[in-house]
Structures are given as C-alpha cells and as structure tokens.
C-alpha cells in the first residue's frame, strides 16, 4: 500500500533521487580533484574508486527513508495522531517502519539506477576481488544496519514524549550516522582508534555496508556481524520498553 502511495508521490521521489544524486555527485567530484592532487595515490589504503563507492552506497542507504521515521513518530506522539493507529491490531512501530520503507522504494530504485549509470559511464567501479562474497556479506550487514538505524530513529522519535522537543537528539543521531557512514569523509580516512570507536557505536554499526569495497571488509565482517547482532538485540529491547512506557504516558487532547 505504501508502494502505491509512493507511486502517487512519484514527483517527490524523482526530486529526492535528483537531490541525492547531485549531492553525491558533487562530493565524488570533490574527492576526484583531491585524489588528482595526490596523483591518484591511495589515502590510508583507500583509493578513489573505493571512496566513491562507499559514498554511493551511503546515498542509496540514506535514500531508504529511515530518517523520516523520526519526524513521523515524533509528530504523532506529540500531537496525539498516534491514537488512530494504536487501536488497530498492529504494532505501531512496525507499521511506521513499513510506511517509510514502502514510500522510499522508488527512491532507492532510482538511486541504484543513477549509481549504475555513473559506474558504467565513468568506468570508476572499484576493482576489488571476491565480489559475490562481498555482496552477500554486505547484504546481511545492510539489513541488520537498517534495523539498527530504524530502531535508533524510532527511539529518538518516542523520546519526544519525555523530551517534548527531541530535535536536538535527532540531529546528534543523524550527524553521527552520516559521519560514521562516510557521507562526508570515508571512514577509511579516520585514524585507527577513532575508526574503531566509531564502529563500536550503534551509529557506526548501522552503516558498515559503506565499507563493502574496503580491502579489509571481509576480514572485518565477523566482528561487524557480532557487533550488529548485539546492538540490534539491545535496541529491540530498549525500543520495546520505551514504547510501552511512552504509551502509558500518552496524552491526547488533554486527557
């Protein structure tokens, strides 16, 4: 049903695809010039194709719409709009997750198409080995990462019931995911300790998939997987408890 809604919003989806493509295109162009200044030499073992590949994966990941979970839940908890869903035989959080992902399917497809076009036309696809294995492992990390991200954004959305204005918490979370996802600077450029700390945080664990083309990706995969499973379980418990607690504190039209 949300895919059908998204089809009705096709203009909005097209604008979203364009804006993400332009943004990523500009960042990739910037890094292209930086690498040219270094005569194409790798930075911290990351060459231009790998850095650009990570950014493209970040754009597709972010296009999946998990970020819009916060404003929806935040608004519905604060305004009482949740009341129309809470008396239905569904889990409210699951419904909202389905809603945001359903709506963003055309955006994700559009971004995959744009990325393919970029790689085909530029010939800048990362030259790394064991691609089928990487894609398989990356897919697992993508799903678990999206679960962690949606739970984090849902948690910040629910926190509106106590914080009243959860926007600052949202901004901190959003920027942490962007930084550790390599939206601005590839995480491979980070000093080793900083990178490790970032990867251990849930905001970093949410977005390991951007390291798909990194030389050490398959070596790090077991550690990434264990970290993700731990965070997913912890967050599932915390979000469930927070949701139950917030539901009892819910106020609608005074009462």
């Amino acid at each position: 049903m949300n895919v059908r809604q998204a089809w009705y919003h096709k203009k909005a989806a097209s604008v979203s695809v364009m804006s993400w493509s332009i943004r990523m295109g500009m960042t990739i162009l910037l890094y292209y010039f930086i690498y040219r200044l270094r005569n194409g030499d790798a930075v911290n073992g990351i060459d231009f194709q790998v850095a650009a590949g990570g950014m493209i994966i970040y754009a597709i990941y972010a296009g999946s719409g998990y970020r819009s979970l916060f404003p929806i839940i935040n608004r519905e908890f604060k305004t009482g709009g949740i009341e129309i869903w809470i008396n239905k035989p569904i889990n409210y959080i699951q419904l909202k997750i389905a809603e945001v992902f359903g709506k963003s399917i055309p955006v994700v497809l559009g971004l995959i198409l744009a990325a393919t076009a970029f790689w085909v036309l530029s010939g800048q696809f990362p030259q790394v080995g064991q691609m089928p294995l990487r894609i398989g492992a990356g897919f697992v990390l993508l799903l678990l990462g999206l679960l962690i991200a949606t739970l984090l954004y849902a948690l910040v959305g629910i926190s509106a019931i106590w914080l009243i204005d959860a926007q600052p918490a949202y901004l901190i979370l959003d920027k942490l995911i962007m930084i550790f996802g390599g939206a601005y600077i590839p995480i491979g450029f980070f000093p080793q300790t900083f990178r490790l700390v970032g990867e251990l945080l849930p905001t970093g664990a949410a977005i390991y998939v951007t390291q798909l083309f990194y030389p050490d990706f398959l070596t790090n995969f077991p550690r990434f997987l264990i970290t993700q499973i731990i965070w997913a379980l912890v967050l599932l418990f915390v979000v469930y408890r927070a949701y139950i607690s917030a539901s009892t504190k819910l106020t609608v039209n005074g009462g």
Partner: protein
Amino acid sequence: MSERVIVEIDNLSKNFSYQKRTAGFKNWFRPEYINVEAVKNLDLEIMAGEMVAFVGPNGAGKSTTIKMLSGILSPTEGKIKVCGLDPIKQRRQLSYKIGCVFGQRSQLLPNLPLRDSFELFGKMYDIPSKVIEQRIRELSDIFSLDNIIDQPVRQLSLGQRMRGEIAASLIHKPTIVFLDEPTIGLDVVAKRMLRKTLINLNKTQNTTIFLTSHDTGDIEALAERTVVIDKGQIIVDSKTNELRTKYLNKRYLKIEFEELPQKVIVPGVKITTKGSVVNAVVEMNNHDINDVLRALLGLGKVKDIQIQDETLEEVIIEIYKSTEKKHEKPE
C-alpha cells in the same frame, strides 16, 4: 436489543499533570506539578445494541473516556471491560471487536482511492481478500459510497470523507463503534445522511454505537440514551426522550392576535411583543400554564397560537448550569 452488557466501567479515573510555570530557576530543580482530574470515579454500563450519546462541555472528559475505552489511554484508577476484554492488557484482541472514528483526525490514506484504505484496514484485521471485496461492496451500499470509492481521499468533501471514515472503521464488523464527534464540520444535508446511515447500521447489524457530540441534533436523531458528563463525572444518565420531561423548565408561547392588544402584562412572565405577535416565556416551576394562557387569550381575538418546548440544546445547557451552581455552593 439483547441484554448483554458490552461496556462495563467501574470507578474509572484518569489524572494527568503538567509542570507549573514559575519565574526564575526554582522550577528547574524542584518542578511543581499541577494535577488535573480529567475523569473522576465514573461508573457506566452499556448494553449490546444500544445507541448512547456521551455529552458534555469542552474538557468534561468525554474524549478521555472514549480513549480509555478504546485502549488508547491508560486509566489512573478503576476497571474497564469492553466486550469482556481489558482495553489496555488485551488491546490487540479488543481491536478486532471495536471500531473508532475521531472526527478531527483522518485514518484514511489521503493520496489513494478510498478503496485502498478499506483494503489496508481489511489486511490489518486479517480478512481474506475475497471477503474484503465483499465487505467493500456491502459498506458502499450502506454508506452510498459507490460514486466515490475509487476517488482519492483528498478529493472528497468533508461529508463524503466522514462517511468513508465510518465505513472504514466497520470493515471488520465490530461489535461496538466509538464515534468522537462524527458530524463535526458537516453541513445539514451531510449530517442528516450520516445519521440515517448510523441508524440503519444499528438496526440492521445491531452494532452498538457510543458517540460524543456537541450537536444536539445528533443526540436527538441517534441516541436512545444520553449520558451527560461534566468535570469528569456523570451528572445525568437518562433516556433521551425523557430528558425534556425530567429537566424541562420552560414553555415558549407565541400568540398572534387579530389586533395588537393594548397592554400585555402577566405578572412574573417574561413577555415581548412584535407587531400583533406576543411571545411569552413561562417558567413552569413558578407558574401554571393554564393561568398564563387564560390571561393571554383574554387580551383579544387570536389569529394563531404556538406552544414550544425548550430545545434539547437548552435542556442540556440547563443541566450544565445546574451542575455549575452545585459546584459553586460552599460546602
């Protein structure tokens, strides 16, 4: 109407608090809270198949009660059973037995045809696709939705949308429907159509209807029983058609004479004249209607006469006022 109790409310209370605003930083460290009792020790029973109006001024606790009955808000104290289930502990099971419509919020998918919202809700209630289709046809007949079922919701008029909202809430054949101000913002024609549909629904499917409304037209047209709530407490629980006889205090007389009477004075009766028409308001507690009529009819030759009751709206206002007075009286 069957004699099965469908809603049982026992000593129900709902409090909420908000932080008191004070100047300076005092409230940062030791915040003071103001407690509000939205619903106080409410007791109520509703039988299956009843149509009950839950009436009260703004802030009386109507919506809070409806939201506790539908499992949205948790009570502070007391017990609730709806269809034999606890709305908070058994929210999921209860959701299959209740339908809810909140007049000020839409549950329909705004950009998609109305049919899609019905299909979505049908899936939510685990109804097989074929049954959903059949149910859409039935509801389209009952609510006259044939012409609008494939129209995007945002293009519907308010009256059409409200019919859609109520129909959507019935997709799973609930035993009881909670309607919170269902006719808010509707024009007279749309209101009449909606009321007819609800009566039809109650008669043909024995659906219990529990509604809140500020529109006395809804109450008169729909509800066999009216429960008046004020300041979180029930102040009147009566058959709607008995409200007037129980609480009626005034009669309005309108007499048109052939010629304007010279002097119209009936001691203690408020009288106004306009041309040859005399209007009199008779306080039934203080006067005998026969005495007033005799005095007025003796003024001249009568061309036309009308005796009117108070409107239900005025009766309800009287009820609110009498409660206000009780609250104002020092103990």
